[in-house]
């Protein structure tokens, strides 16, 4: 009898757990239903769309960042959401969903309800995931709401004691010692692509070694384990100031306002140019008016909100707005360009 009572409570606990799972899983359950019964879903969507015509957004919007809290993706996203809240009049809740190079988070949005209440905020990593076969969808499979930030501070750094003072020194050394120069990257990341592009452009071969994310790469450079580290220049501003690191150049079109003494790659005779794109995307089939409402709010903040512009400039990235169509085109072009770099390096 007593044992039965005990069992009863265990069953109760399990029931509680399942209820919780079901509660949280509402979205996911509907997603799987959505793909099998798409026609049904679509009809409700158009109804939603009509109802939503002017009322979106009515409740808080979840922003999925497929990278950790405190990183630059997270930072750029949160800087914008703070100001977007004022424009849209609802809360924007940032959720960090990490895993497999960002594809865990982006897959979640790909399969989410297209009701405009879940949006992805990510960067070039999504393009590269497709390139490497980590995902089977493209960024343009989403409803792209636009681009909010272009990061032009992509730079190559060496130790302050390094004999390299320019890109040319570095390339020359690599020419004389093929495969010897240890350059850090995170395999399959944006910086990896930059290295492949420079190898191609300069006709040299580096020893490309994996050193992990941004802070791990800085550690590896400071610890003397690698010779060159490609990373975002804003992250190492203090090291440049203190003389512990030197920048060999930035991959931007023009010199940066914040680092006027650092030349561009193009200036130094190597046509390698990369801007990191930070974009916003809704699940496929999200009604156009929802995407537009969101995008217009973005435009207002990015182009007119001085407070925002100042904050984002402080992170050494540029506030740039592109609307849904322009952004989609830009992303498609970039995807094509990356594809070419990657395929050339494969040969």
């Amino acid at each position: 009898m007593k044992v039965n009572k005990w069992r009863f409570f265990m069953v109760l606990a399990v029931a509680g757990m399942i209820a919780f799972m079901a509660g949280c899983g509402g979205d996911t359950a509907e997603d799987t239903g959505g793909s099998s019964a798409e026609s049904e879903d679509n009809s409700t969507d158009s109804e939603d769309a009509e109802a939503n015509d002017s009322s979106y957004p009515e409740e808080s919007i979840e922003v999925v960042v497929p990278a950790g809290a405190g990183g630059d993706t997270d930072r750029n996203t949160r800087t914008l959401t703070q100001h977007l809240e004022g424009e849209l009049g609802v809360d924007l809740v940032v959720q960090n969903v990490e895993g497999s190079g960002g594809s865990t988070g982006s897959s979640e949005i790909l399969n989410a309800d297209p009701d405009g209440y879940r949006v992805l905020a990510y960067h070039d990593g999504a393009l590269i995931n497709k390139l490497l076969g980590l995902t089977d969808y493209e960024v343009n499979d989403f409803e792209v709401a636009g681009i909010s930030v272009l990061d032009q501070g992509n730079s190559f750094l060496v130790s302050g004691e390094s004999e390299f003072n320019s890109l040319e020194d570095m390339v020359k050394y690599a020419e004389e010692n093929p495969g010897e120069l240890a350059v850090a990257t995170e395999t399959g990341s944006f910086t990896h692509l930059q290295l492949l592009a420079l190898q191609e452009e300069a006709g040299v071969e580096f020893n490309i070694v994996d050193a992990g994310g941004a802070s791990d790469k800085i550690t590896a450079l400071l610890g003397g384990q690698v010779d060159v580290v490609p990373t975002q220049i804003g992250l190492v501003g203090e090291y440049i100031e203190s003389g512990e690191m030197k920048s060999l150049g930035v991959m931007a079109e023009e010199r940066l306002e914040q680092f006027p003494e650092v030349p561009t790659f193009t200036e130094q005779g190597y046509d390698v140019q990369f801007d990191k794109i930070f974009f916003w995307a809704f699940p496929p089939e999200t009604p156009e008016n929802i995407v537009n409402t969101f995008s217009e709010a973005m435009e207002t903040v990015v182009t007119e909100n001085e407070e925002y512009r100042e904050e984002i400039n402080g992170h050494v990235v540029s506030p740039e707005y592109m609307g849904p169509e322009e952004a989609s085109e830009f992303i498609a072009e970039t995807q094509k360009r990356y594809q070419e770099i990657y395929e050339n390096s494969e040969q």
Partner: protein
Amino acid sequence: MAADLIAGFSSMFTPYNMLLIVTGVAMGLVFGSIPGLTATMAVAICLPITFTMDPGSGMALLMGLYIGGVSGGLIPAILLKLPGTPSSISSTFDGYPMAQKGEAGKAFGLAFVFSFLGGILSITALILISPPLAEFALRFGPIEYFAITMFALTLISSLSEGSIVKGMLSALLGISLAMVGSAPIDSFPRFTFGMGQLDAGFNLLPALIGLFAVGEILNISERKISPLTKGNTPPPKMKGFGFSLSEFFSQGWNYLRSSLMGVGIGILPGIGGGTANIIAYATAKNQSRYPEKFGTGIPDGVVASESSNNAAIGGALVPLMALGIPGDTVTAMLLGGLVIHGIQPGPLFFTNDTDIVYGIFAALIIANIAMFLFLSMGIRLFVKILSIPKHILLPIILVLCAVGAFAENNRLFDIWALLFFGILGYLFLKGKFPIAPAILGFILGPIAEENLRRGLQLTQENFWPFLTEPIAAVFWIIALLSVVLKGWKNYHQKKSLGGT
């Protein structure tokens, strides 16, 4: 420096900042003490709130959360054998048996005092010698990391109760499960059986609370105990902190060694507090004159675990403060909390942002004291948890475990993973397999693999430098010695047993 520290304290001694620290510690303790909710989560939740505060106040709150979160784990570890956070895994080994013997009060007393002392020692190290410590940490590249993980894995033998073979099998299973998902470096998905959800692999948290907490709860649930009695734990006796001054001083060396190990492991980015307590515990056991008593409820085990995990906090902050490099997920978020205010920690952090740096130091010390006071005041309350009938308490914990597993990454999949690991933990208990080696393998396996591959890229596929680099060589030698010594001891024990 003294003047800076005083300035730091005076910036923290405003009612607002004190309130933030105390709230942070209290909330951290709650998060730490609930299996499934961790310091990382507490910091992640409060991080966005700090964006609107001034940087000093933001840091005050986060430091409180960090210290509270790491310390709170000892409560369920000692009372219920459920580690509240990865940092308190080894507090269960001796803390729980002590509580079972009616010494819960003493176990808590030891745990609080040595948590506090471990924390203070590491904060002192952080304030005084951050730069040289950070310089030293920089000398650890992939080759050194590989050697140190291999050394740590040899400690498995010390964590295996009884059968070493079972301990090794358990560790191998842990390593294999950690391999599921994207491979390090090339992110190639493996062992996923085509299931997209498995691409990201298993998270540590569901694995940890599944194996330890859910497994244990399932195990208890099948016991034919009367649900309405208050369990079979004798009521704890309590007087002061429950231990005598001579007992306190006899732990001196154990405390110092464990704290230093905590600082040392905390400094190394990527390894952190989750492993520090296990490694310190195993070392304390190996070096003890009475290793056979470990696991039966002796103070040494609690002291080793609790002083090392709090010491790891100061350690983890060293590379953050001196170099701007985060050592674990919590410090990564702290970095984010500073960066959003336009403060980029780096080599000039100490000189450019002296007020913030010393504000953080002051906040850490205050938070440590607050943690100690909260726990000392709460001691009677915590022990009361034991008098809650288990059929009411455990189901609640089970649900909280599920909440925690979900909340870490907002993925439903993690609850399924929790269930899977729970069943696995139950089978471990049934088969008398030790669980700690599995979790150690789960944490260290990926670190070893990743660093082996990175190291081989650096040396251009040459393994020889892995053995000849000085720091790595030292760890290999310690690893080898510990295995040989263990084998030697076992051999002699068997021989002398056979003789009698």
